[in-house]
């Protein structure tokens, strides 16, 4: 039995800017099928990916927020945002589609320190 590694996926992009968020989310779903414990951190502009009321069809794109909502069905419930990053866009946790834990910016380093593998797309 291989010991379980804790995986952190860091998101850094705003919605619609690149396929990185989609690609990172796909990693999360795949890893959960392999029982790897996955946490997601939405850094900076990536908090906007979680913003409610997006209308991706206006840009003829698939709705990534729908797939983000599926995380819970994959037993991925460890989602994190940084307080200061929410504040920058005048967002509160109520504006987000997912129930996220918020972290103080000063706690970021020790948070990342605890993981075994980090993928930062």
């Amino acid at each position, binding site marked *: 039995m291989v010991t379980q590694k804790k995986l952190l996926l860091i998101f*850094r992009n705003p919605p619609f800017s690149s396929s990185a968020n989609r690609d990172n989310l796909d990693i999360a779903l795949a890893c959960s099928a392999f029982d790897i414990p996955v946490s997601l951190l939405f850094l*900076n502009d990536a908090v906007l990916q979680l913003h409610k009321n997006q209308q991706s069809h206006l840009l003829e794109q698939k709705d990534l927020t729908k797939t983000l909502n599926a995380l819970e069905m994959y037993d991925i419930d460890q989602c994190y945002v940084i307080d200061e990053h929410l504040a920058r866009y005048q967002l509160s946790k109520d504006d987000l589609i997912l129930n996220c834990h918020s972290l103080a*910016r000063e706690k970021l*380093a020790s948070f990342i*320190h605890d993981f075994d*593998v*980090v993928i930062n797309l």
Partner: protein
Amino acid sequence: MTSSTLHIINKAASNSQLYRDCLDSLHDDDGVIFIESAVYTACGAEPEMFSNFNITAYALKTDILARGIQDKISEKITVVDDGEFVELCCLYKKSVSWF
């Protein structure tokens, strides 16, 4: 072997948000290695931004030589060759890439 993280950064310091996020992520005893365009950060006064932290900053020799900036590298930076970069990845428990 340490329990700390090696941060691998490959963009020039003009990507200020990337550097800020990387700085926010630095834990005590972490290391940072500048590769590709990030080796420019190893020049002059730029490494100052890392001086508040108890970290070691490295820069990749091949990328430095390729850019012809070997005379400009700050004394605060440890220059490592390709083999030593691999060794660092073994020494630190994990890596986080910033790009």
